[in-house]
């Protein structure tokens, strides 16, 4: 008896928190399969009475501007993640391996630049990029986004490089390998889990971006997902909630797939990055 009560209490806590975390997902899923008539039923129905694909069909046919934003989001997120990985390999190795005066300053720059709010940067980047002629282009957007990911990602990857024993490098130097050969041919393959963590992290963060795109992009055909959704499908007096929930499902799906497929690397990376960074 003495042992049973805490166990029951534990499962109640677990059940309540898991309900809080997962019920909204369930609610989004079932609403997207309801007719609008049923979505506007009060009291609400907990299982769709008739499962319909109306909302998804309308998303693919009438409201397919969504897929322009979707494609742009993929493109921008993928390229940003790729560039971030390269930059992080260079800088992460440099931080982990060399202890020069500059590298201390460099780490201080990275740490402090994580704190600044995006809007503060965008206020002057908006006029800076207008002058440089890269406002309202994918190039400008990607550069601004990559810069925002770089500080955390460099520190994250350096925590992977630091675990490689130096003897490997020293042995290769004796064998006559150049510095670039050591870094790219020898060490980079050894930190593949770290590079995956950085890439996925940068991809997830860019997929989630709102402010960079909201301020730097004005043309509808260049807009990314978050801004596109909020400008096109919100703000009218009557929302089409089945459609909005189907958009939410399609917009979340790639992230869920990416995360659960690479979960092992992500979890390790997040923990390493947060604790070291």
């Amino acid at each position: 008896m003495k042992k049973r009560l805490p166990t029951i209490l534990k499962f109640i806590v677990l059940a309540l928190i898991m309900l809080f975390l997962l019920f909204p997902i369930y609610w989004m899923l079932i609403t997207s399969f309801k007719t609008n008539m049923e979505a506007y039923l009060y009291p609400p129905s907990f299982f769709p009475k008739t499962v319909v694909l109306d909302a998804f069909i309308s998303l693919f046919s009438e409201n397919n501007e969504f897929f322009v934003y979707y494609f742009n989001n993929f493109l921008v997120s993928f390229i940003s993640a790729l560039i971030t990985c390269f930059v992080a390999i260079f800088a992460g190795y440099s931080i982990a391996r060399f202890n020069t005066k500059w590298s201390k300053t460099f780490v201080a720059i990275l740490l402090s630049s994580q704190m600044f709010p995006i809007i503060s940067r965008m206020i002057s980047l908006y006029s800076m990029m207008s002058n440089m002629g890269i406002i309202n282009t994918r190039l400008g957007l990607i550069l601004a986004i990559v810069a925002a990911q770089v500080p955390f990602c460099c520190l994250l990857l350096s925590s992977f490089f630091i675990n490689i024993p130096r003897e490997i490098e020293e042995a290769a130097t004796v064998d006559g390998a150049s510095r670039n050969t050591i870094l790219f041919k020898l060490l980079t393959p050894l930190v593949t889990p770290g590079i995956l963590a950085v890439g996925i992290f940068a991809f997830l963060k860019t997929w989630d971006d709102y402010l960079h795109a909201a301020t730097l992009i004005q043309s509808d055909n260049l807009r990314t997902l978050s801004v596109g959704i909020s400008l096109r499908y919100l703000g009218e007096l009557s929302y089409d909630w089945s459609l909005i929930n189907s958009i939410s499902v399609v917009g979340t799906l790639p992230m869920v797939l990416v995360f659960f497929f690479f979960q092992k690397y992500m979890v390790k990376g997040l923990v390493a990055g947060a604790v070291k960074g």
Partner: protein
Amino acid sequence: MKKKYQKLSDNSYSFVLTIPATLLTVVFIIVPIIQSLIMSFQKYGVKNIISGKPGTWNNFRNYTKLFESNQIPEAAYHTIWFVLFVIMFQFLIGMALALVLNKEFKGSRFFRSIMMTPWVVPTVISGLIWMWLFQPQYGFTKYFISILSFGQVTDLAILNNPRTALGGIAVAALWKQIPLTTLLLLAGLQNVPKSTLEAATIDGAGAIRRFFSIIIPYLAPVIKITISMAIIENFKQFPLFWTMTGGGPNGSTTNFAILSYREAFVSMNLGSGAAVTTMWMIMMIVIVGLYQKYFKVQDLS
């Protein structure tokens, strides 16, 4: 055998490797931040962008106007209220979940994995999900609360009421952030030595005593990092506010992020927006600094 050396010295090679990251950080973060500090003392509007003319000094007018109209104090109040509320519950709920999931039981692995789902939902979409749950006519929470209160409260409209709107956004923020907190605390719990816990149990320490005297001290470094990450994240929160309420109703959810965005990109008064972000950053630096100073921990592991 003669030892071989690299052609490039350590100093120059390590410097060359940091060039791309430095360039990106300096050009797209450091310089814009400094420039927006300067702009906060200038009259700088949409005309300056079109003509490319620099802003003109306006004698602290951006600041005095924002303080006179009480906008900065209100934004500060909303921001801090939101940060404190979210962090407190995030920590309590995240810790409870981490403690439960730390024990192996049937399905514990499955729960550890599936609980991360809200974290990968894009922020704007989390806002949409919660707007739909909070919907004032057909929303789930209206129904849920009316049942919980035995039919007493039937007109719940969380996001439309100035007294509850901020709390509604905080719930959405909690939903999205609790998973990461739990994940980090779970990782920290792995460092608590089992032998110490067992020894304490044999000596007669109860669960509560073990929690405060052993688990918390070992977990302290992870707790410190988790909370400071949460402070920064919630201090900067923008997309949830912007999609869920846009700062309303009646300005009751206007935090620093919303105020600066509205000043700079809706009213196109970039100088005034920069003044808001300057106050915002000063406040953030002070709070994070105080936190780091008063929350010192010893690393036990």
